[in-house]
């Protein structure tokens, strides 16, 4: 089975987020980056499908040059090769523009399955995979927790709200957006890291792909949210804070 996995590089979870002087995006100067969390799970699912059925796992990533590091990480975990759509970001694209770029890069590959994360940790659109399916004319399913290939179709378990699930059968080719936790993640081995250096990374420029990346939504401003709730912040050293809190639990919340 030929599987494409889209992988995005995002600011590491514990980065200090500072808005840039233009107020449009982050000051990226002292941010470190990592693989978007659900994408790591999408990659894991793809690798396990390949181990079971054979075939190929191709990593697809749109991002600036630094994203190459995340691509190498995916290759070190076991992906066979990668496509890097290189862009010089002036702030982020909207989900439609990103998906149009990715669709152009995917089309010549004709995969049977495309796995994406269900949502990016930075922009959180939760859309790119679904749009990609629409642009390519593929069927899709979102928030997927299990994948079971059945010949020319695939049966997946979708997460619904409030503890409900649903199995859905869809024809291939298909796009699945993968939910975190679908499988246990592997680590890259030393051997894997070594091998990754020799694997093919095809670099395409956004211009080369001639995709329409004009925005249909405009992000005017990025800022720290204003807090409205009156939270009592307890201060002091650990012991003092603990003491105050226990008083509150005793006399205000009355649970002790």
């Amino acid at each position, binding site marked *: 089975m030929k599987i494409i996995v889209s992988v995005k590089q995002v600011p590491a979870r514990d980065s200090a*987020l500072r808005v840039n002087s233009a107020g449009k995006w982050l000051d990226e100067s002292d941010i470190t980056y990592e693989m978007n969390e659900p994408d790591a799970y999408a990659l894991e699912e793809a690798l396990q499908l390949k181990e079971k059925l054979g075939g190929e796992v191709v990593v697809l990533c749109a991002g600036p040059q630094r994203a190459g590091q995340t691509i190498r990480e995916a290759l070190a975990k076991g992906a066979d090769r990668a496509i890097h759509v290189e862009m010089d970001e002036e702030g982020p694209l909207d989900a439609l523009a990103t998906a149009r770029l990715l669709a152009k890069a995917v089309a010549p590959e004709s995969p049977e399955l495309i796995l994406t994360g269900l949502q990016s940790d930075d922009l*959180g659109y939760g*859309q790119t995979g679904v749009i990609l399916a629409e642009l390519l004319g593929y069927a899709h399913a979102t928030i997927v927790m299990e994948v079971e290939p059945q010949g020319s179709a695939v049966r997946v378990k979708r997460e*619904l709200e409030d503890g409900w699930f649903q199995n859905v059968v869809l024809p291939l080719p298909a796009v699945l957006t993968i939910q975190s*936790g679908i499988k246990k993640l592997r680590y890259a081995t030393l051997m894997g890291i070594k091998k990754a250096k020799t694997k093919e990374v095809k670099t395409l420029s956004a211009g080369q792909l001639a995709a329409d990346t004009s925005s*249909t939504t405009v992000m005017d401003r990025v800022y720290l949210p204003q807090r409205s709730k009156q939270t009592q*912040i307890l201060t002091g050293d650990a012991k003092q804070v603990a003491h105050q809190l226990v008083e*509150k639990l005793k006399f205000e919340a009355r649970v002790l």
Partner: protein
Amino acid sequence: MSVLVILEERGGKWNRLSFEALAAGERIAGALGAPLQAAVIGAGIEKLANEAATYKIAKIFAVEHDLLARYTPDGHTAALEQLIKAQQPKVVVFPHTYQVRDFGPKLSTRFGKALISDVVDIKTAGGQVTFIRQLFQGKLNSDVRAAGEPEFVSIQAGAFRAAEPGGEAAPVEKVAAELEPSQIRTKPEEPFREAQRSVDLSAADIIVSVGRGIKEKENLPVVEQLASVLGAELAASRPICDNGWLPMERQVGSSGQTVSPKVYFAIGISGAIQHLVGMKGSKTIVAINKDENAPIFEAADYGVVGDLFEIVPAIVEEIRKAKA
């Protein structure tokens, strides 16, 4: 030039987020001076449409077809594409449900537009609507505008107080969707729930909930001790269960349990919306987090900005003293 709100049903029951989206639609329609309309899609939805007609809307569309009896992205997208082409609304408003996540972006793509997803607030000035949405799981906000019409937006759970019925019943317009079985590619099976849970967090008086701030499974005893001295249930955010450090049934949030104990301790939990929806109903919320900007503090009654590995053992110590 209307504002059209898409209400969501499953098996003849409303998804209650529909009426929060309707409230957002009311605000947008008010600002634009546009009529507010609503639509419900399915099979055998007349009763629901009549019920929706009692809200403050100008009109409700009941979009019906046998093939819409069970949700599929192909069916819903095609039916709504037809409705939107016929009605030409300026703004289409959805609740940000799992179902809308599944077909909303597909539908907006048909119109060459990106969906402005998971909106938490709306600003209006001079006939222009600006939508506020969160970035980085609630750590930052952004102001977003649509370039061109129709505009597609989805509204985050809990961001708006649900609209209330009132006024005269609005007219219900039946719309027969044009659909062929061959258009529907996915075959949905009956929704189901996993086997009975062995832990019922909803009955707990006190919950000690732990997030990724705990760093490693080996550190769990730090919070287990607190749960133990309080006689509390232990719960967790999703990543803890994804990693297999605690069983899935202890997960709180949109894909876990919904809880409302007397006291909820959120320890090393950032406060992403999918977690908040599962615990905001708690009577008292205590948040311990080393990041003073963590969104969890917005939900908390008492907050401690600091290292959980220092704070939690100190609390255990104090409780032991208080109990002695």
